[in-house]
């Protein structure tokens, strides 16, 4: 197995207090890594650094052997998809959201694919034209998730995406992620959820901005 991400002495210290310090970690292609740790320990920051939504203040991250700083950000972010804990849907309808991944790739909108993606997360096809203001929290998270997954990424970064979801929605989300894992997508997730932690292949703990233990 080769490492899709190599993290070398990574640090993030935007102000006087370091948020992350001296992180060294290789993430294998196709692995399922779960990051745990107390709130405020720097887990989400690590995901955001991997997603290039933040820039390290020390050390570096290699993606497929190349320094992240040298990569074209839009193309990289299309392959390394970051999912927010409380996603915001934009535009007016569900379709506006599912159309966006096509737009940024300069492709024509594929309605059939969009409808099929909705059914994969147990949402009705007809929801495509529904105004986003009418969706429940769980529905919003599912739409946001397929917005990230419409074009299969190489890496999926999940920032506590199941927090606050009801059991049914959680199950749908877990099933979807399992499908993408089976396709070989590398999944990195931050979670406090016991079932997700139990299902993890590899678990790491971050405490006070430092990597604590690397349980295989």
């Amino acid at each position: 197995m080769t490492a899709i991400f190599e993290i070398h002495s990574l640090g993030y210290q935007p102000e006087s207090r370091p948020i992350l310090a001296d992180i060294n970690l290789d993430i294998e292609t196709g692995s399922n890594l779960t990051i745990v740790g107390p709130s405020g320990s720097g887990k989400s920051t690590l995901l955001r650094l991997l997603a290039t939504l933040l820039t390290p203040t020390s050390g570096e991250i290699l993606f497929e052997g190349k320094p992240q700083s040298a990569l074209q950000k839009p193309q990289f972010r299309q392959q390394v998809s970051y999912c927010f804990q409380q996603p915001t849907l934009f535009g007016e309808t569900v379709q506006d959201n599912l159309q966006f991944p096509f737009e940024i790739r300069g492709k024509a909108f594929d309605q059939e694919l969009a409808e099929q993606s909705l059914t994969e997360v147990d949402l009705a096809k007809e929801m495509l034209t529904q105004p986003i203001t009418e969706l429940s929290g769980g529905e919003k998270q599912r739409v946001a998730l397929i917005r990230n997954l419409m074009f299969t990424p190489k890496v999926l970064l999940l920032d506590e995406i199941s927090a606050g979801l009801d059991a049914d929605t959680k199950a749908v989300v877990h099933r979807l992620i399992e499908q993408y894992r089976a396709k070989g997508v590398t999944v990195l997730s931050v979670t406090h959820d016991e079932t997700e932690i139990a299902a993890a292949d590899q678990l790491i703990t971050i405490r006070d901005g430092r990597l604590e233990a690397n349980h295989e």
Partner: protein
Amino acid sequence: MSNNLIVSPTALGFAVVLVVIALAINLKEKIGLERDMIVGVIRAVIQLTVVGYVLTYIIRVDRVWLTALMVAIIIFNAAQNAKKRANGIPHAFPISLLAIGTATLLTIVLLVVAGAVKFTPSQIVPISGMISSNVMVAIGLAYRSMNTSFHDQRQGVLERLALGANLKQASAHIVQMAIRTGMSPTIDSAKTVGIVSLPGMMSGLIFAGVDPTKAIMYQIMVTFMLMAATSIGSVIACYLTYARFYNSDMQLR
């Protein structure tokens, strides 16, 4: 004709009563604008007096370079004012200068080429002022709209970036909104012109005794020219501004 147009200094002195009325209302209602009002009145009197003498001189000597210099000063001042409304957007002055300059010059060139106005100071200077001030207001509004949207819609922009949008794609909705906001006063006044307001140019001509049917021709031209100028100015300003909200790593500042 011009004899009936002279407002005597005595008449102006009496008109100060109008300012006193405004001040009295302001003081009674505790609006707190009395300082600004007095400063505004004094500035208006001084600035207009100076510009009256300057224009008299420019029109009398009638030199191309002097007319061009006056236009340049108007554009520069407009850019300076637009920059103040940018509220910290980096490089707002050069961006405003380019936007107002291009919009004003392009519109004037078109009007001169079309023969709608002549390249004489008495026509070029007032028209430049009209265009520049409208573009200044338009891009000032556009800047404010962008500042507000990038602040209020931060999460939405972050999501677009995370999905792999480039800066233009991540900002498109904000830019569209800003251009719309910038142009809305011009479009609104175009819609109500004649039924609510008799705008300055047309009123001035009618005051001066020009047949209203001729005066409206000028006003129609002004309406067209302001629409063109504010759209050119807003588009240039917005397209040069949105990227300033991001850093070189394509993250929101």
